[in-house]
């Protein structure tokens, strides 16, 4: 697995780690991290392609369109724990800009 660990990716991983077993919505993650859709979704897509992220459609109530939900896979949770949130201002580690193989 090969995921570019940009500060934004670390922010997303951190947002998932808060409740790693819970499903999250795209807009919810966007609000939590402050990332725009154009930044957030490519990260989610890459994570899903690398099997770090589970995706599912919500079982919506009648008449309401379903929402797409995300949560970390066990590998994703382990990966997130191995790469803690060093993105926070003043805590940017070297790994934040590097390429990490897992």
């Amino acid at each position, binding site marked *: 697995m090969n995921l570019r660990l940009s500060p934004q990716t670390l922010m997303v991983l951190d947002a998932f780690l808060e409740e790693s077993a819970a499903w999250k*919505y*795209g*807009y919810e993650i*966007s609000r939590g991290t402050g990332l*725009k*859709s*154009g*930044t957030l*979704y*490519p990260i*989610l*897509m890459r994570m899903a392609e690398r099997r770090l992220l589970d*995706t599912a459609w919500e079982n919506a109530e009648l008449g309401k*369109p*379903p*929402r*797409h939900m995300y949560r970390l896979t066990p590998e994703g949770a382990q990966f997130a724990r191995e790469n803690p949130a060093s993105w926070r201002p003043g805590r940017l580690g070297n790994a934040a800009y590097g390429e990490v193989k897992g």
Partner: protein
Amino acid sequence: MSLLRGLATRLLCGVARLAPERSRVWALAMLRELEFVESDWEALWWALGGTTAILKHSGREWMAWCFRHARRWEEQAMEQMGKKAGLLAAGALGAVLLVIGAFCLLYLTAVSFPGLDIEHSEGAHFFVVLVIPVAICLAAVLWLWRKKRPAALGILLSVAVFGTHVAVHFANHFNRH
């Protein structure tokens, strides 16, 4: 629905409709989230960002598809080329072995029947080593031309080399006399 929100919805609907299969699910995901975006301007930015993300993803998918197909095509071309080269070599080798076999046959006959004096008979040499193998080779070329052309070309190549050798041999022989 406001004008901005309507525009954002139409934009993401269009993207979801036009996106390739693997990107479509993400376009639909962003479209569903649009309903939960509070302000209209934010909704428009959400849709624009989503469109950019889908364009990037589709572009990457398309590039990956192109690389996959180019690699497969290259592998097939290499395989075909290897097969053709093998057949060509087999044809050429077959013709060479035939001529060597004819030489061996002539030698064995000369040893087995010394009374026939084949060793000094130019006609026997000409017939056994040249006429018979070339006739067999040409028959094989005709037979293989449609089915296994590279093998036929390999045989023709050997015949051409052998023919040149014989022509040079005869030219030297007649010059000496």
